[in-house]
């Protein structure tokens, strides 16, 4: 067994997790500072500020304005109904959540239930193989393993 590539994969997995944690922390800090920076720019009446960081990176901080349409009180369904009614149905797309559907299928098959015939006609259940790494020990049998075992009968 080529332990070198397996070890490298493990190292990259650990590095990726650390980078993700660092990115989350950076985003959190930027989010916390953003109102204060906006206020500073407004107070000093500047809309952009080119600067060089301590590491020598040249960054221009600027005020970016963009209009976003959001549903009143979060009522997305009302927006969909209204768009359809006022001839803007092109902006509405019916879709499904691939993660939720896959989770539903995994759970059903893992429980030993077969899929509804009509659903079986329109979806394909594939086992996607990938390599992952995690710090905690693996569980005895994953939902996917159970689902695929039950599907094979």
């Amino acid at each position, binding site marked *: 067994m080529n332990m070198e590539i397996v070890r490298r994969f493990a190292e990259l997995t650990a590095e990726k997790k650390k980078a993700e944690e660092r990115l989350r922390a950076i985003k*959190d*800090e930027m989010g*916390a*500072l953003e*109102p*204060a920076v*906006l*206020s*500073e720019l*407004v*107070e000093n*009446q*500047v*809309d952009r500020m080119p600067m060089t960081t301590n590491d020598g990176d040249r960054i221009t901080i600027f*005020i970016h*304005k963009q209009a976003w349409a959001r549903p009143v*009180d979060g009522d997305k369904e009302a927006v969909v109904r209204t768009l359809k009614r006022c001839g803007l149905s092109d902006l509405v797309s019916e879709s499904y959540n691939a993660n939720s559907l896959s989770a539903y299928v995994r759970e059903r098959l893992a429980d030993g239930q077969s899929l509804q015939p009509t659903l079986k006609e329109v979806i394909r259940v594939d086992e996607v193989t990938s390599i992952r790494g995690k710090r905690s020990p693996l569980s005895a049998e994953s939902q996917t393993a159970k689902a695929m075992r039950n599907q094979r009968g």
Partner: protein
Amino acid sequence: MAKQEKALAKIGETGYAIIDAPEAHEVMIGAFDQLGVSDFQLGRIKIPAGGGMAWEVESLEGTEVHQDLDVLILAVKGNQKSWWSTSMEEGGGGTPPSCSSKDGVFGFGVNTLDADPDAAPTKNRCSECPWNQFGSAGAGKACKDHSLLFFFREGGRIPSLLVVPATSQKALQGFVLKLIDAGKRFEGCITKLSLKKAQSQSGITYSTLDLSWVRDLDEDAKAKMVEVSNDFRSRISDFDAFAANDDAN
């Protein structure tokens, strides 16, 4: 159709003593240097409670009521935060905040409810403070964000102060951004301060600040106002809006 240009306000004709009166700038700076801006009782106007649509302004003749105020903005100081450990009903009104920040990043004070009355103030990071999180006071924040807007009223030689609450921050920032976009500065034009009615999601009616451009100062008047503004701004880095006036909150 071509836009009709509004006449520029010239020195001697602006109606604002700080520009029209030759000695006004020097007198104002002299007064601040002698008494300190923080300790100086600046005239204040407040956004009225309960959705009121008029400004109440103190003058030598008593209280005047105005629908709008045409002002010269001198400075804006943002990133201010204040938190009171007791509510206004419990005695928090009229007292200095328990913890406050002048940069929006660090607060200074006692930011716990169960602190000893003699507890020493500490430096607290605002982003980690529970009172600065949405949901700490209903859906909103217990720690109040505000900006300080310093301005001259017509005829005035000493600036007045408006504490701009969180509900009006967007209007203030939006107005300044519009000016920047148009190549203007707030010291270089006359601004109208008005009030607009708004309603919270829970149905409470309140007033918000509404700012609009009136007309530009001419180049000489603008240069003078920028000079006054720079002198003033260099003296307000430590300005404490709640130390000098006990009815500010």
